[in-house]
């Protein structure tokens, strides 16, 4: 298979990674801040307190700046499935296209209609209709997250479909299996609650800055009171659904799971690596390193993955070289069987064309028997270690995300406790921590996606379609040009966004300060 244009595959991946990561810089704040806005405005409508209205409007201004660039970076992603991954679009378009269309019909129109009322309707519609609109923006944005995450989850754990050898693509068998797969549900709740966490951290950080500067005390205190508890709850659900997601990975993507934990040799009673540092080459896996130093928690990995401390967790070597005792085929065997499936598909089509019905039936049987290895066929005759993702990136980004998650939860709890005890005043160290935690929220959020996407390499569709068979027929140079084009534009827009946001924060709100309502 020396025909593969690796430069094209790599640049296509780089462009998708670039645009997806840029998009994800803006989406979480939209998902979470819309929720926070809706709660704040509900408080305004319920209490009639004008200050809540002004607080809502202030955060709405921040929301607007972020929302626009989220929309801008989002359109590329949808069309990129076609422009850069054309084989993919056909091979699984029958399943993958549906969530994208539903996202447009059900979510985007909701979002775009009501966001305009939310921004411009304060004086044009009644209080209640306005409140409804703000809630609808939340529903719309989170619904759109649902559909795109269902689509992503399906790529990680393809279910509810079958391969049709006549149309040469996968076709949907059950819409509900696609929508309600445990991978999809965990992914959705994990992702949106992590977005709520990030948004709460942003509100917390900006409010803390105001407290440090002795400005906007009412806005800051009320916001902190709300998001400390909101963020803590969101973070706890993020942890629970993160655990659920990891269990799904262990079940359906054992290689990703092994890479996340830097586990080369499979074992029963596998320990969980709490922290680790790579540094020495792994003798059995080319270009991969193993730990120089690490701290383990015994049995924990087996327990977390399968709720059984004795459970066997396959390591990278078991998956590459096979473990017949545990019934694991080696990648070389899977590549051979994948090739059988692919060859059988070609032979089936030929037999059908020439009217050889029996031959067609025989080939179909071979295809069906080997279909679960289909994607591995593209690695026949190649170095099967290409099927191992970057262990370092998977491990570090996963652990960074988890450690930061712990920090966020602690921060929310401390804020919540001190606010409750009216002891927030003068806690400069805490305010500084909250300010510095804002960028960390983005680091954790992006790291989560890096685990999900780098860890599953080289699969675009797990076990079915590797990236080398999913790309479009373009020259790598064209993709390079568009990569740098998007890089330049998105970076410029990001700088503009940050500058506008900073200026908005510096300008502050319209909340009239009331001497009675202070820190105490």
């Amino acid at each position, binding site marked *: *298979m020396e025909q593969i244009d690796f430069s094209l595959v790599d640049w296509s991946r780089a462009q998708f990674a670039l645009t997806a990561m840029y998009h994800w810089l803006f989406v979480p704040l939209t998902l979470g801040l819309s929720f926070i806005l809706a709660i704040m405005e509900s408080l305004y409508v319920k209490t009639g307190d004008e200050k809540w209205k002004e607080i809502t409007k202030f955060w709405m201004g921040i929301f607007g700046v972020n929302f626009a660039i989220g929309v801008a970076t989002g359109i590329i992603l949808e069309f990129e499935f076609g422009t850069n991954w054309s084989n993919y679009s056909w091979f699984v378009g029958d399943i993958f296209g549906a969530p994208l269309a539903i996202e447009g019909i059900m979510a985007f129109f909701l979002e775009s209609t009501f966001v305009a009322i939310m921004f411009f309707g304060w004086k044009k519609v009644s209080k209640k209709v306005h409140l409804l609109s703000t809630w609808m923006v939340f529903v719309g944005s989170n619904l759109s997250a649902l559909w795109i995450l269902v689509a992503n989850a399906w790529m990680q754990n393809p279910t509810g479909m079958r391969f049709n050898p006549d149309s040469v693509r996968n076709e949907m068998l059950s819409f509900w299996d696609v929508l309600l797969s445990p991978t999809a549900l965990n992914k959705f709740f994990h992702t949106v609650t992590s977005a709520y966490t990030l948004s709460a951290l942003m509100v917390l950080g900006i409010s803390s800055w105001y407290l440090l500067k002795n400005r906007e005390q009412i806005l800051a205190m009320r916001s902190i009171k709300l998001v400390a508890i909101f963020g803590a709850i969101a973070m706890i659900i993020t942890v629970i659904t993160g655990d659920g997601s990891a269990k799904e990975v262990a079940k359906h993507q054992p290689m990703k799971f092994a890479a996340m934990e830097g586990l080369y040799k499979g074992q029963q009673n596998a320990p969980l690596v709490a922290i680790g540092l790579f540094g020495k080459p792994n003798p059995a896996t080319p270009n991969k390193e193993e730990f120089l130093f690490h701290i383990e928690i015994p049995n924990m990995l087996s327990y977390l993955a399968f709720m059984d401390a004795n459970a066997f967790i396959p390591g990278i070597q078991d998956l590459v070289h096979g473990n017949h005792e545990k019934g694991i085929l080696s990648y070389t065997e899977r590549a051979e069987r994948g090739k059988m499936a692919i060859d059988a598909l070609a032979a089936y089509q030929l037999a059908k064309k020439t009217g050889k019905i029996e031959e067609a039936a025989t080939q179909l049987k071979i295809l069906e028997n080997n279909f679960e290895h289909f994607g591995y066929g593209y690695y026949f005759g190649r170095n099967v270690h290409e099927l191992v993702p970057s262990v370092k990136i998977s491990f570090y980004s996963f652990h960074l995300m988890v450690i930061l998650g712990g920090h966020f939860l602690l921060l929310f709890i401390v804020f919540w406790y001190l606010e409750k005890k009216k002891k927030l005043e003068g806690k400069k160290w805490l305010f500084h921590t909250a300010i510095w935690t804002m960028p960390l929220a983005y680091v954790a959020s992006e790291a989560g996606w890096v685990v999900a996407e780098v860890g599953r390499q080289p699969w675009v569709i797990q076990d079915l379609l590797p990236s080398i*068979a999913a790309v479009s027929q373009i020259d790598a140079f064209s993709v390079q040009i568009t990569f740098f084009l998007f890089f330049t534009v998105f970076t410029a827009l990001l700088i503009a966004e940050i500058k506008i946001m900073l200026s908005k924060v510096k300008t502050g709100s319209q909340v009239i300060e009331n001497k009675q309502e202070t820190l105490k």
Partner: protein
Amino acid sequence: MFENLSLLVLQQYWWIIVSLLGALLVFLLFVQGGQTMLYCLAKDEKERNLLVNSLGRKWELTFTTLVTFGGAFFASFPLFYSTSFGGAYWVWIAILFAFVLQAVSYEYRNKKGNWLGQKTYETFLFINGLLGTLLLGAAVSTFFTGSMFSVEKMNITRLSGEMPIISSWETPFHGLEAVWTLEKLAFLQNLSLGLAVFFLSRLLANLYFMNNIESQTIFERSRKILGINSALFLVFFLFWLIRLLFIDGFAVNPQTKEIFMQNNKYLHNFLEMPIVLILFLLGVVSVLWGIFISYIKKSDKGIWFAGVGTVLVVLNLFLLAGFNHTAYYPSTFNLQHSLTIENSSSSHFTLTAMSYVSLFVPIVLAYIWYFWRAMNKTKLSTEELENESHKY
């Protein structure tokens, strides 16, 4: 309900939905058209702010319609998605790029600390208005003139030799050649539809401003420019339409599914589908009526007639391209690789599932209509803008 329909009926149903979304998109391109006239319609900053804010409250609807059009096309005709988007790479990337620039420009244009300056964002809006309309128009014209691509599904079984890719574009220009392909003067046809859509979007913007903004000077200037935009639109559109009726079209043999060239195919399609012809003509008349009452009678209701007319015209042009045994995305590289609604669609199951989702479309249209009416009770005025907390 839908599961009992035949695959062909579902394919036709989805072609109508995609066509309707495309038609709504072309109507909503008035936002883009308006963006190209910010300087000729407004003489000072106050007026320009009015124009930008008037358009700014609608831009997302256009944007969302484009995204939904893409998503619906993907879900219902994935082979088109993979072939056209992956093939005509530069055309689609240029269109998307123009829309990326637009999406931030309204929000950032007037904000403190916007880094690039107001003029830059206004230039972005202009680029979006020009490229977005011109390229979309030219791309749709290739539905009738064809493109150089091949589709070979069995390529996916290639484990040696070339890459295992199904759809390939057979020119190195990846779609840009649509504006210089000499064969059968396709470039003239494609360019003229591109320009027709560009001027259509501008004339619709004129009508929209006349309806949406409380300013006599903007009304008058819009009306004046409406005359020029309408004349240019008619020149390019009629040129494109008349040629369309006389060129050879891409027909499908209903028995063998073989694709062949047929004289005056699109004229035949009109005659063999009288409902399409009647609705198309009604659309044309409605657009003309909208222009007439606005230009001559100084009415502010022209946008409604021209809007409905645009939707009817574009919807029926799409039906002309896809129905009556016609290949809607023809390959001039290999006729037999042309895409038809039958050979490029999703499965029966997916089309059925999606058809249930399509029942939401009327609900969506209803709430958009209801809430926009609530928002547009009065025209946008300078006074309102001055008292507005969120403005562009």
